[in-house]
């Protein structure tokens, strides 16, 4: 069974600074995808960034980047130049391809506060 662990229930960062959110996972599969989702107070789940396990290069989306360490089963999210709008719950998730559907396993989330 897959498990996803986020060991930081809460984090805070000064506006314009950089923050890193941690995530580790456990799977016996060789083919899988990793995701970070953002959930603002509106509760909508918004995809932030995605990483395919077979790709060695770390994914980057504007101010968001990941540090994917496959051997260590670690997938951290770095937010650069933090903005007030980045304040939200951040969920790390993992999915393995299955025939017809995919089961997305979520961590317990990290609440990020951005301090003006």
């Amino acid at each position, binding site marked *: 069974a897959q498990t996803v662990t986020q060991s930081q229930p809460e984090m805070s960062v000064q506006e314009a600074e950089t923050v890193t959110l941690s995530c580790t996972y456990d799977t016996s599969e060789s083919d899988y995808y990793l995701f970070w989702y953002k959930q603002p107070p509106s509760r*909508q789940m918004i995809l932030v960034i995605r990483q395919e396990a077979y790709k060695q290069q770390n994914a980057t989306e504007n101010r968001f980047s990941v540090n994917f360490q496959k051997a260590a089963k670690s997938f951290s999210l770095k937010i650069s130049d933090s903005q007030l709008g980045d304040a939200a719950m951040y969920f790390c998730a993992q999915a393995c391809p299955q*025939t017809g*559907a*995919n089961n997305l396993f*979520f961590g317990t989330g990290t609440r990020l506060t951005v301090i003006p």
Partner: protein
Amino acid sequence: DTAVSQTPKYLVTQMGNDKSIKCEQNLGHDTMYWYKQDSKKFLKIMFSYNNKELIINETVPNRFSPKSPDKAHLNLHINSLELGDSAVYFCASSDETWDLTIYFGEGSWLTVV
């Protein structure tokens, strides 16, 4: 133009009632899901349908019954609602032929009183 839309967004109802949440996606995806987010913000899959066929059916009470009239719609019907059913229910969809990214609706906040 919302990609995954679900209604209602908010629902307050009494114990014992039956209620439905509707979901529609206009992304052309083959697979749709229902996820539940409990009061501690933990998200867990409930059901998944691929082209109207049930693929994933996690251990949920049989008071919960999904229905997929076509691949663009996946509704969730809940019978005999209990206090513990209070949660946010998310509909989602994905395209298995492209990537594994799952796109979520805005959520339906169900409160049972």
